[in-house]
C-alpha cells in the first residue's frame, strides 16, 4: 500500500482507530461502537425503550450531567480572571461584568447553571424516589447519588463566597454558623471550613481550593462511577413484566437524545444568562451586617427551622433526613411497583416522601421570600419597613 492509498484512507483509518469497531457490521458494529470507546462505553450498549420515554426520567440525570459540564467550562473561563484575595476578588468580579468581553455572560451562565443544578439534582432525586429506582440491585447507586447531592450542594456553597460581596459574606457567615449547631464536632467543622472564627481571607482561599479543585474532581469521579453502576445494574429500573427483547441500541439513539438535551439547555440558558444578571451586592463588609442575613436559598429552609429551635431544626431534622436518605434503599426493599411513577403498591412511601418534599419546599419559600428584618414574617405585598 502506497502513501497515496494511505492518505486517501486516512479519515477511515482514523475513525477505525478511534472507534475500534471496524471488525463488525450492522447492529454489532453499533454495539461495539459504544462498548469499545472510552467516552461511550459508560453507556449500556442497549437500552429498553421504556427507560427512554421522556415522561419516565424527564432526562433529569442527563440534564444534571450537562449542567456540570457547562459549569466546568464556564468555571475554567472565570478562573482566567478571578483572583482569590480579599483585595482583588470583588474587583475582578466587577471587571468580568463590566469590561471583559462576554465576561458578564460567562459569569451569569455559571451562576444560573449552578443554581439550576441544585434544583435539577433535587428533582432527579425525587424522580428516582417516586419511581422506586433505588430498590435492589440499585441500593448502592442511590448512596452514590446521595454523595452527588452533597457534593453539588457543597460546590454551590463554596462558590457562593467567591464574589466577596455582602450577599456572599453574610450568607456564608450564616451558613457556617448553622453548621456550628452540631453537637461535639460542630465548632470544629466550622473552624475547619472558615480557617478561623470568622469569614476571612483564609476562608476565601479554602473555599476557592475546594470549589475549583477538590469538589469538582470528586464530583466528576463519582458521576463516572454513578453511570458505570447504572450499566452494571442492568440499565434503569423498570417493571419486571416487560420483555427484554425489545431493547434498542444506544448508538445512535441515546447519544442523539443526550446531544439534543445539551443543545436545548444551551439555547434556553444562554439568552437567560444574557438577559438576567446574577446578583452582585456591595463589597463584603464585616462591620455592616444586613438585616435579615440569609443563607444561600438551598439552606434557607434549615435556617427557617433553626429559627424555631436550634437543636430540633438545626440538628435533629437535617440529621434525621440524612439518615433516612442513607438507609432508605436498605430498609425499603419491596420489589413491587418498581419503575413506575407513584405506583399504587408504594402508597405509604409515596405519601411520606411527598409530605417531606412539600415541607422542605414550604420552609424554603417561607425563609427565602417571607422573612424580613429580625426574621419577622411579612407577606410579599406588605413590604418590609424601613429602607431596604
Amino acid at each position, binding site marked *: 500500500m502506497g502513501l497515496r492509498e494511505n492518505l486517501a484512507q486516512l479519515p477511515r483509518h482514523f475513525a477505525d482507530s478511534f472507534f475500534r469497531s471496524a471488525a463488525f457490521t450492522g447492529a454489532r458494529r453499533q454495539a461495539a461502537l459504544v462498548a469499545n470507546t472510552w467516552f461511550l462505553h459508560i453507556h449500556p450498549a442497549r437500552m429498553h425503550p421504556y427507560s427512554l420515554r421522556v415522561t419516565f426520567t424527564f432526562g433529569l440525570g442527563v440534564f444534571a450531567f450537562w449542567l456540570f459540564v457547562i459549569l466546568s467550562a464556564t468555571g475554567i473561563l472565570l478562573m482566567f480572571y478571578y483572583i482569590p484575595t480579599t483585595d482583588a476578588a470583588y474587583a475582578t468580579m466587577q471587571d468580568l461584568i*463590566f469590561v471583559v*468581553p462576554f465576561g458578564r455572560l460567562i459569569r451569569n451562565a455559571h451562576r444560573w447553571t449552578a443554581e439550576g443544578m441544585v434544583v435539577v439534582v433535587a428533582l432527579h432525586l425525587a424522580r428516582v424516589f417516586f419511581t422506586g429506582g433505588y430498590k435492589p440491585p440499585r441500593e448502592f447507586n442511590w448512596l452514590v447519588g446521595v454523595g452527588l447531592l452533597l457534593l453539588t450542594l457543597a460546590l454551590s456553597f463554596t462558590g457562593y463566597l467567591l464574589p466577596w460581596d455582602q450577599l456572599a459574606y453574610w450568607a456564608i457567615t450564616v451558613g457556617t454558623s448553622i453548621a456550628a449547631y452540631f453537637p461535639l464536632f460542630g465548632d470544629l467543622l466550622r473552624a475547619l471550613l472558615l480557617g478561623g472564627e470568622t469569614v476571612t481571607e483564609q476562608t476565601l482561599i479554602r473555599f476557592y481550593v475546594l470549589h475549583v479543585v477538590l469538589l469538582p474532581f470528586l464530583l466528576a469521579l463519582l458521576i463516572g462511577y454513578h453511570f458505570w453502576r447504572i450499566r452494571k445494574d442492568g440499565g434503569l429500573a423498570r417493571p419486571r413484566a416487560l420483555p427484554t427483547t425489545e431493547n434498542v441500541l444506544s448508538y445512535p439513539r441515546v447519544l442523539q*437524545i443526550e*446531544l439534543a438535551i445539551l*443543545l436545548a439547555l*444551551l439555547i434556553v440558558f*444562554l*439568552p437567560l444568562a444574557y438577559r438576567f444578571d446574577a446578583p452582585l451586592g456591595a463589597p463584603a463588609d464585616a*462591620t455592616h451586617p444586613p438585616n435579615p442575613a440569609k443563607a444561600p436559598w438551598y439552606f434557607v429552609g434549615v435556617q427557617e427551622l433553626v429559627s424555631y429551635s436550634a437543636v430540633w431544626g438545626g440538628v435533629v431534622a437535617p440529621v434525621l433526613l440524612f439518615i433516612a436518605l442513607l438507609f432508605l434503599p436498605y430498609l425499603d426493599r419491596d420489589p413491587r411497583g418498581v419503575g413506575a411513577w407513584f405506583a399504587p403498591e408504594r402508597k405509604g412511601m409515596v405519601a411520606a416522601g411527598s409530605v417531606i418534599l412539600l415541607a422542605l419546599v414550604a420552609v424554603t419559600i417561607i425563609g427565602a421570600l417571607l422573612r424580613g428584618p429580625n426574621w419577622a414574617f411579612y407577606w*410579599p405585598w406588605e413590604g418590609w419597613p424601613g429602607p431596604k
Partner: protein
Amino acid sequence: MKLALTILSIALVAVLLAIAWSEENPEWANYQRVYFDLAQRRAQSSTQADWYRTQRVEIRQISVAPLKRVDRCTTCHLAVADPNFADAPEPLRLHSALLQSHPPERFGCTVCHRGEGRAVTTLTAHGEVPGSSVRMLRGEYVQAACYLCHAEKTLPPAATSEIVAGEIAINQLRCLRCHQIDGMGESEGPDLSAIGSRRDALELDAHLLNPPAMNSGSTMPIFPITRAQAQAITVYLLTQQGDAPPANDVRYRSANFRFSIFDFRLSDRKSKFENRKSDGVLAPIVFFRYDGQQLFWAAGCGVCHRIGNEGGAVGPALTRIGRVRERDWLRRYLSDPSAVRPDGRMPQLYLNDREIDALVEFLLTLR
C-alpha cells in the same frame, strides 16, 4: 431525530450570533467617537487635531494606587480637562476648576463623586441602579466628600456652603436631643456618627422630609423644613462616616493615605490645553437618548414613589398616574413642583427639558 438535532444546532448558532452582535457597540464607544470628531473640528491647531485623530476608541481608566481604586469614568467623561468643551453637554463637559488642585490622573473621580468606578455603562457607573450602595453625588451633594481628606473646617466656606448650612440647621432643630453624633447628644434615635456610610443622599432626603414613609412607625418628628434645608442637612450627615470606614474601603484618615496623596507632585500637570479659550457654539450633541423608565429610577423618583410593588412611600404611588394627569400638567409639575403646589412636599429636582419629556412620556404609560 436528525432533523430535530439540525434545527437545535441552527438555533444555537443563531443565539450565539445574536449575543455576539448585541455586545458589539457599547454606549461609551459612541461618546468617544462623538468626542474625537467634535474635538478635531474644534481644535486650535493642526497638531492638536492630529493628536485627536490618532486617539483610539478604547476604555480609559485611572488607577489610583494609594486608594486602591480604578476609575473608568473618563471613558465617557473625556473632556473633564479639555477647555474646548466648557459649554458642551454632559458627559463631554469641562470640569469645574476644582480638578486643577485634584488632577484626575492622580485622584480619579470616585473619591469625590462616589459611583461605581469600574463600570462603563451610565447608570451602573453612577450607582443609580436599584440596590447600588454607591449612589453618585451630584451637584452640591459632592461637598459631602471634601472632609474625607481635608481636615475639618479648613476649606473656604464657599466651597462647603451646604455643610455649613446643614450643621447650622441641625443645631437649630436640635436633632441631638434624640441623636448622638461623635458622642454628643441623647440616644432616643440611632447614633448618626456613621450615618453617611449607611445611607445615601436620596434616602436621607426622603427620611428627613417624612420619617414614617421611610420607616413606618417612626417616632421621629416631621420637621417643617424646606427642600433646601433638607439637602443641606443631608450633605452634612453624609460627611459623618464614623471612625471606621467600611472595612475594604480606603482608610481616608490614616497617616499613610495622607502621605501618599501629598506625595503627588501636582505641578507636572500643566495641561496642553490650558489657557485656550473656547470659541463659538458647539454643534448640538443629540446622541444621548433619555429613557424615561431608567431615568425614573436613576433620578431617584423611586426613592419616594412606588410603581407597582417597587419604590418608596414618601410620595403617592404613581402606578396609575397616566390615568389621572395630563401631559401638560405633569410637565409643569416636574419642572417646578412648588409652582403648582406651593406647599407641596415634592422636591424640585432640577431636571432638564429632555429629561422631563422622557419622564412625562413614561409616566403617561402607567395606566
